[in-house]
């Protein structure tokens, strides 16, 4: 929707831009994750991994990866997760690492399970394993001369005495930093992002509204573009909160903003329209080429907003959050400086 500029002079608009970069998975230390896979009865798949979904959508991402690796559909995938006594280590939900670390581990596990199945079917059909593809629940030869459902294939494989299982472990070879000069290879995959923000500043109240954010992020390969967009939108809005209103305050060690009446969070009325574009520069060092988006999505937002405030009203806010009080004080100072300048001139 087009938002016309207001006629009233007290609201000023401006735009700012900022860039940012981020490393994927654990910092300056080797990172690893593992998964087990089984091609199961009915042409379904069972994936077991210690992955910890925290709402970002990693389970869906894994189901999509499994589906493509095994030639089945996401809805055929069952994921057993997050239990230290039942699943292999996949470590923590953090460091923008789950799609990269666990996605690749799961892909490797699937490849091994698939290979077990394909070996039996290739023998049955008297073809090379390379001539077999699995897709959308069907296993067939490249020339379409032979085919069966994945369900039949699993049954056949089991009748040969083989359960088609696999395991995968994925490593990110990061090195520690030199304690004196900090040199080292903290990550093997980096991502880049940039955002433009447009704000409206009310010069009478000091209130800043972020109206639009245009965000571009390299994620390596977007497994679920809508999910990537969701991470960008969520990250941007979290950063809008930190830039304009959120402030955990303590006085002499006593916290004073201990509930949501005092600790102010962005609501549906505070958020900009977020416009995203996803750039794919695949990671060459991993099987899937995926990287990540969870954390990097919020890196450029705050400085883009602060730069936009300057563009709008000519004051630079150096400390977060840019509350109405701070913006008003800065505007007043700017006016006083201008007045003094005029007086002296």
């Amino acid at each position, binding site marked *: 929707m087009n938002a016309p500029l207001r006629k009233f002079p007290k609201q000023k608009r401006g735009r700012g831009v900022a860039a940012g970069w981020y490393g994927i998975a654990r910092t300056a230390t080797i990172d690893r994750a593992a998964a087990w896979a089984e091609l199961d009865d009915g042409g379904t798949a069972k994936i077991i991994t210690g992955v*910890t979904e925290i709402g970002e959508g990693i389970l869906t991402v894994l189901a999509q990866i499994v589906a493509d690796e095994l030639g089945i559909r*996401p809805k055929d995938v069952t994921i057993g997760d997050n239990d230290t006594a039942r699943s292999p280590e996949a470590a923590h939900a953090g460091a923008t690492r789950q799609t990269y670390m666990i996605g690749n581990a799961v892909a490797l596990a699937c490849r091994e399970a698939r290979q077990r199945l394909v070996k039996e079917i290739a023998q049955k059909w008297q073809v090379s394993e390379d001539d077999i593809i699995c897709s959308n629940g069907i296993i067939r030869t490249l020339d379409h001369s032979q085919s069966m459902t994945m369900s039949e294939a699993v049954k056949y494989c089991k009748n040969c005495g083989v359960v088609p299982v696999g395991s995968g472990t994925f490593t990110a070879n990061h090195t520690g930093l030199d304690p004196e000069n*900090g040199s080292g290879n903290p990550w093997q995959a980096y991502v880049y992002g940039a955002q433009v923000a447009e704000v409206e500043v009310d010069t009478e109240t000091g209130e800043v509204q972020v109206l639009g954010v245009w965000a571009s992020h390299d994620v390596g390969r977007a497994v679920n573009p809508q999910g990537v967009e969701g991470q960008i939108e969520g990250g941007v809005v979290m950063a809008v909160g930190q830039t304009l209103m959120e402030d955990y305050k303590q006085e002499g060690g006593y916290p004073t903003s201990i509930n949501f009446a005092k600790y102010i969070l962005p609501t549906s009325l505070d958020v900009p*329209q977020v*416009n995203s574009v996803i750039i794919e520069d695949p990671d060459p060092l991993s099987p899937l080429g995926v990287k990540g988006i969870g954390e990097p999505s919020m890196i450029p937002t705050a400085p883009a907003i602060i730069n936009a405030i300057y563009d*709008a*009203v000519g004051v630079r806010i150096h*400390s977060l959050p840019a509350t109405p009080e701070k913006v008003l004080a800065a505007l007043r100072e700017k006016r006083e400086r201008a007045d003094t300048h005029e007086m002296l001139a």
Partner: protein
Amino acid sequence: MASLDIQMTVNGRPVKQSVSPHLRLLDFLREELHWTGSKEGCGAGECGSCSVFVDGVLMKSCLMPVAKAQHSEIETIEGLEEQGKLNVLQQAFQKTGASQCGYCIPGMMMAATAALRANPYAGREEIKERLGGNICRCTGYQKMFEATELARDVMNGKLTIEVLKEENEEGPFIGSNSFRIDTSSKVTGALKYAGDMVMPQMLHMQVLRSPYPHAEILELDTSEAEAMAGVEAVVTHRDVKGIDGFGVFTDDQPVLARGKVRYVGEAIAAVAAEDLLTAKEALKKIKVRYRQLVAITKTEDAIKPGAVIIHDDVPDNIVMHIPIRKGNVVKGMAEADFVIEETYYTQAVEHAYLEPEAGLAYLDADGTLVIQSPSQNITHHRQKLAKILDMPVNRVRMIMSPVGGGFGGKEDMHYQGILALAVLKCRRPVRYVFTREESIIASAKRHPFSIKYQLGLNRDGLIQASKIHMLADGGAYNCSTEGVMRKAAILAAGPYAIENLMVDAIGIYTNNTPSGAMRSFGAMQSQFATECHLDLCAEKLEMDPVELRRKNFFKEGDETHTRQELGSVSMLEVFNSALDLADWETGMSNSRGATRSDLAQSGNRPPCTLGARQIPLETIPTGQAS
């Protein structure tokens, strides 16, 4: 205790029960009837997660005494499904990917339902207003607006139900918007978070927390609390059998305070009792005698010579100092045409995940200790707990319950150890659910930083040298401070090729709430300074800030600040695409908002103006436009 006979209809079924009059409607639904779809996010009517319909009116059930709902008709999230199938709004939430952690979703679904019931033709701005009483921390709301609009259009017959179908059912699936596999459990309220779980014989735990930022504990007497009827166990540091201490990088935090408290809200003792009220009462019977110590609450005070020591083994109060050195900064600055300095500050930030911390712990039949909690790091927590409890690692089983938002805040093992001690002491299941206030004071925050920035540039905009000095308030315990300093330092100078560099990130102990992991982990703070500073420099150089950045961006084969050779670098393409998307107008960096012509295009929302709304006549449904 007095009791109250309550009769109401919940999701079309009659309910009659005798309950304690102190219950809120939310407690009645969740604890008595086990309709746990409605969530408690704040207990104060601020977040909306508990929203239900009472006689058709959207209400926050945490604010309503159950007696007020006598004889009313209640609709909860569990009542939205139609004949066991997702209704249109639920399907629209699925289609747009509007649920992430899912914890706010029951309340959000009820608010969106109320919006469309009130005005089936509600526009985007009205929808926003009607969802304004509900907080979501994951999604940024965008997809919720889209979902509500989509449902509206389907319900009005403007779009067919086909638009709610999954786009790709044949594959390949990587690159397609497959439906989230957890959506239906979230939009129906079926998913059980830790605080929704119950077990037979389950006890309720409450925790006594420090009222002081820094104090010695001279006496800790729990005998009176232990003697109370209904109290099964009181636990303190004395119950720790193994090596006490947890943390993400160093184990500097005891499960329960050990002779000293270092921040307001630090856990001291816990009670497991038959019911919540008894547990709360018992806390009051625990006697603690404190000797208050000088509290250090500013980083600059903590590193002054002679400052009070917060942890005995860290006499300088410095948790971690990460230095990065490259080239010759002194020479680089001396040779630069301009040296521009500024100091930047960032504040402490609360994660504000909508699900406050909660856990349910019990012993498996074989004696294995099981802890179900929204832990972001079950692997690490298992290792720590085994050491603390002196148990073989395979006798400790961590299960991550569905996480109602984490953002780094659930990486710390702030309460799982306490639950473990209680279970081992009374050998019954124990549940602990934080209040919002408890969650805020007890859990780690984003590190506040002060960042002294000095950048040397040539007239043409090339960066010659960068000196960045960062002090971060780590609060009372390490948590993730070490890692946050490392990431802040490595990424601080931004995606720019710089020959001469001197970066220091120093994390400091204080008696403030601990700082820990939070989304973007130090890099948000350090790059905030960099990106603000570049605009400042561009103005001094009378350059376009866009050009200044482009001139200095990393490219393939460049060396990073830690001297790593980069492979493919997408920075320039990413940057250009953001500017293209925004239709950015080129120009100098000198507050040109008043003159630029790229403002107010599509891609913005209208500025927020609450109150009277102009409604185009044609959008008002026939029969209402009287």
